[in-house]
């Protein structure tokens, strides 16, 4: 699944949000979109997800224009996207209604296991922690076997320890299933830990300011000088001295 943004412009009323976005994402690539708050990251993700039509330009996926949401490409919200009236199993099987019973069962079991929710199959979201709900939402997305995942600050609401664990889990899943991933964040460290490439956006109206390839193999050592150099170059790019 190759994703191509061509010349995307977007405005809400008189607010210009996106300014000529051109970007190619390769099949199986993990791309982080990094930018200041309010610059238009979510808007960009909503456009590629098919929920918002861009004012100008188009997104093509494997040469097919995006005209609306599609089960081959699943959007993951912060953990608030899980359905509170369904238990863990029912949430995971939400998108499986076209599959035969046996296959549904197999996928439920597989993804309950994969995201570590064994023993909680019949728990409702309000009985789960924030991190568990987030994993549940990822499982619900993966269960329909999409080619692409869109994640909009998926770990933003989690505490820092859970967030680190979730990143590790996501990388493990990505390495196992090789989905194409577009991951929006405003956390520089997060982007350097996860991505093959970091797309740095400017202030609104957002342009692509720079694309930084992260050529460090996983698992990444956070004290590796190469990691630190890349991280600091992005800090510099955004105009922040790496000091508090």
């Amino acid at each position: 699944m190759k994703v191509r943004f061509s010349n995307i412009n977007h405005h809400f009323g008189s607010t210009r949000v996106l300014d000529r976005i051109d970007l190619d994402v390769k099949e199986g690539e993990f791309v982080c979109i990094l930018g200041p708050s309010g610059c238009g990251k979510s808007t960009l993700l909503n456009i590629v997800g098919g929920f918002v039509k861009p004012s100008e330009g188009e997104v093509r996926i494997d040469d097919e224009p995006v005209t609306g949401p599609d089960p081959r490409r699943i959007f993951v919200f912060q953990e608030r996207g899980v359905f509170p009236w369904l238990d863990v199993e029912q949430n995971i099987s939400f998108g499986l209604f076209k599959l035969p019973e046996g296959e549904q069962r197999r996928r439920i079991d597989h993804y309950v296991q994969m995201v570590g929710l064994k023993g909680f199959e019949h728990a409702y979201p309000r009985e789960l922690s924030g991190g568990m709900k987030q994993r549940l939402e990822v499982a619900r997305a993966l269960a329909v076997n999409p080619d692409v995942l869109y994640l909009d600050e998926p770990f933003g609401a989690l505490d820092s320890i859970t967030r680190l664990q979730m990143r590790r889990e996501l990388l493990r899943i990505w390495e196992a299933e090789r989905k194409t991933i577009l991951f929006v964040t405003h956390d520089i460290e997060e982007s350097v830990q996860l991505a093959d490439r970091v797309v740095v956006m400017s202030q609104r109206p957002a342009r692509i300011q720079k694309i930084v390839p992260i050529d460090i193999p996983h698992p990444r050592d956070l004290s590796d000088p190469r990691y630190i150099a890349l991280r600091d170059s992005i800090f510099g790019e955004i105009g922040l001295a790496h000091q508090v």
Partner: protein
Amino acid sequence: MKSVERYLLPVLTAMVLIALWHLAVIATGTNIFPSPAAVAKGIFHLAEKSLLWSYIGDSIMRVVFGYGAAVILGIPLGILLGWYPALGRLVNPVIQMLRPISPLAWMPLAVIWFGVSNVAPIFLIFLASLFPLLVAAMDGVRNVPPMFLQAGRNFGLSVPQLMRRVVFPAILPRLLVGLRIAFGIAWLVLVAAEMIAVDSGLGYLIIDSRNAGKRYDLVVGGMLLIGIIGLAFDTMFRRAERLARAE
């Protein structure tokens, strides 16, 4: 301990109140307000003649029809108005204007339209429960978190599937509260409607007992029955709410 608190305490309170009532009747020497024993006797007497059961049956039947019609019409209509905001904006002023009019204000019109028949109170109950249900469904749909809808569409649901699998469960808790509130109002309106528009039912029992022979034992008995049956329904609704939340 818990079940003792839940069941024994209310029973105890009721017993104390009945005792106080009894004492008050004796102490004041009133010959209008009946004692608890007189009320019980009057009610048992009515129950024996099976008149009581047919009154209760008539009252419940009217509520079932009026309230049932409001549920069948109001909830789908409310969902529709919430789903299509333009339609909602069009109709909302009318709803908001009609809503504050007490259903009882419709009584003269209801009697002219439907005469002294079952239809008049059923119509009033229908009106009384329609607006709370309509508004609960409409507001419910409007307040479904957008990401639930987005997720539903993302997984390829058609609009009817989205309604059934996302919108309806999302608004259900609110809807149940609306159903309970609407029922409470319907029950209030029933009694008033039965005092004017028909010649059976619990409301009629009260007004008839006074008019035909100043039977205040039956007036108070009717009031108590209305309270007890209303409470029983309310408890049922609360159970349903709790079940829906706990599922």
